[in-house]
């Protein structure tokens, strides 16, 4: 560790991983409730399980991004973090707000939660992924603003690189687009339209900038490739992200009340969306091939290549399956969307967090050459368990989506949603099994932190 303030990243990384365990656990509970409707009912109804599952995901990714940023910014800017103290304060504020929100979801009926958290003052609750009570949303804004100020002040006083510029652009976008979470028009269709400004422009635009910057940083460190070369790739990737991703928002506007022209604009733009992810694969593998050094932390490079490949499959390929308007007519709102959502979030955002943790955490723990061979082998096992698990559950969800489409949307002998639910229950058992594999993979990953160092 070159700068002592980089150490603030450590609690962020650890907490992100703890939340990930919770996220997967709630996913498993949901997958059981999907098949056995009485499981945990009425103790924890499905909507609560899902809210905890998705909100934990969002918050853990934010924690991961923050940890990654606090680790890489001092090295990039070549100076200590502007205020390590502020970074630690915001960490605790975010932890308390996050835990309180999850406990609120679990122990207070949602309608009561809206009442006791002043939702009437500015109604923002009850929308998918943005279910957080008003105080939590305000808290997120404060935490993100203080984080951006801290990072920007560090960069302004230090060296500016392409990586820091791209990262800060992504962070500013993240902050700006979150403001749409506070705008809830009475008209449901208008509400949906602006809801996507947060949801899509986070995951398919600004977060990709952040992911690209983190990936570029790790690749510089573990391959020793010349920065000029890395910068060019980074610009190329984010250029394709912006060109395809912004207008690609249109693929959400096909069938929700927006005008017809989105059918064309959304289809064409989002057909290009796999391209930046494909470039990420080329980027990771070319840099790995042209590497100038052989870093002892080999597993970090494995994760870097892995995130590029899995993000391409999950976001690129699985996204493309249903992104053309005539296809989306039949897939819109089925388990196929869930399949795409799972693999893309895992491939792009969970794996980039694993990548940076794999690289940075050994250094933060005083092991500049990475963990021992034995620990890296355990980590590699967990890498494959989680990848195979996620791929398996994605295939299962896709199969379920296809059955739903043929049950209720294509042909003449249609059956209803609940009848169709019975015909996919065996597929959901398989999905739960692969989910369990992911969870065991994560526990194996945790175990790799505790493998004793060789003397």
């Amino acid at each position, binding site marked *: 560790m070159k700068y002592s303030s980089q150490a603030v990243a450590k609690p962020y990384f650890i907490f992100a991983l703890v939340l990930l365990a919770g996220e997967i656990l709630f996913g498993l509970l949901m997958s059981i409730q999907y098949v056995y409707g009485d499981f945990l009912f009425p103790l924890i109804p499905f909507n609560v399980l899902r809210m905890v599952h998705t909100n934990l995901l969002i918050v853990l990714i934010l924690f991961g991004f923050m940890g990654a940023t606090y680790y890489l910014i001092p090295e990039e800017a070549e100076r200590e973090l502007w205020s390590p103290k502020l970074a630690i304060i915001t960490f605790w504020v975010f932890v308390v707000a996050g835990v309180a929100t999850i406990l609120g979801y679990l122990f207070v009926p949602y309608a009561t939660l809206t009442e006791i958290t002043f939702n009437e003052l500015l109604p923002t*609750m009850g929308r998918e992924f943005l279910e957080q009570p008003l105080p939590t949303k305000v808290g997120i804004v404060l935490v993100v603003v203080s984080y951006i100020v801290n990072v920007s002040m560090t960069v302004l006083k230090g060296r500016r690189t392409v990586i820091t510029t791209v990262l800060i652009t992504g962070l500013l976008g993240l902050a700006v687009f979150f403001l749409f979470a506070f705008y809830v028009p009475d008209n449901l269709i208008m509400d949906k339209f602006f809801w996507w400004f947060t949801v899509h422009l986070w995951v398919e635009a600004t977060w990709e900038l952040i992911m690209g910057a983190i990936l570029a940083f790790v690749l510089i460190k573990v391959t020793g490739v010349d920065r000029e070369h890395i910068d060019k790739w980074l610009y190329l990737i984010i250029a394709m992200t912006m060109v395809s991703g912004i207008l690609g928002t249109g693929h959400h506007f096909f069938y929700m009340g927006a005008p017809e022209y989105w059918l064309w604009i959304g289809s064409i733009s989002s057909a290009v969306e796999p391209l930046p992810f494909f470039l990420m694969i080329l980027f990771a593998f070319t840099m790995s091939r042209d590497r100038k050094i052989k870093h002892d932390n080999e597993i970090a490079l494995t994760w870097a290549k892995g995130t590029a490949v899995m993000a391409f499959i999950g976001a690129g390929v699985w996204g493309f399956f249903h992104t053309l308007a005539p296809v989306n007519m039949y897939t819109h709102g089925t388990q196929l969307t869930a399949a795409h959502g799972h693999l893309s979030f895992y491939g792009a955002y969970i794996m980039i967090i694993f990548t940076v943790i794999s690289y940075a955490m050994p250094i933060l723990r005083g092991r500049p050459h990475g963990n021992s061979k034995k620990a890296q082998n355990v980590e590699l096992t967990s890498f494959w368990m989680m990848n195979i698990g996620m791929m398996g559950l994605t295939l299962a969800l896709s199969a379920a989506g296809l059955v739903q489409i043929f049950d209720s949307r294509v042909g003449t002998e249609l059956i209803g949603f609940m009848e169709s639910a019975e015909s996919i229950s065996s597929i959901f058992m398989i999905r739960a099994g692969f989910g369990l594999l992911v969870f065991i993979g994560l526990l194996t990953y945790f175990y790799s932190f505790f493998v004793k160092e060789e003397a």
Partner: protein
Amino acid sequence: MTERITKSMAKNIYYGGGTFALLIFIALTFDTVHQIPERSNEVNMTESVVLGKKLWENNNCVGCHTIVGEGAYYAPELMNVFNRRGASDEVTFKAYMQGWMAAQPLAVPDRRKMPQFNLSNEEVDNLSDFLIWTSKVNANDWPPTIEG
């Protein structure tokens, strides 16, 4: 392929292309916002419809159901429930909704369960009005069938 592209070219594609895409997106946003009131029949959006939407949000209905294709996939799509369960007749649908909401949760073993939300009759009517209004939105001929 990438050998011929220099760093400054890549940078220009990023700033130029990104700005271009953003400007088109903003222009289309203005047009869409202009068109949505007509496509969604905003003139028919009564006070009861708005109250229904609040109930929809305050009880986190989207945590299980989809509406106009968006939400969770645990429970049926509700944009066309007015046509499916009410045969597109307001009186029939409202009567159905009163019975349905009061009967939850259904005592069928292992069936996915809907909680009892303890809504008043008036609130259930608000919810019905909201769903009736939603069923008439022009969503480019979606959903494809009455079941989907």
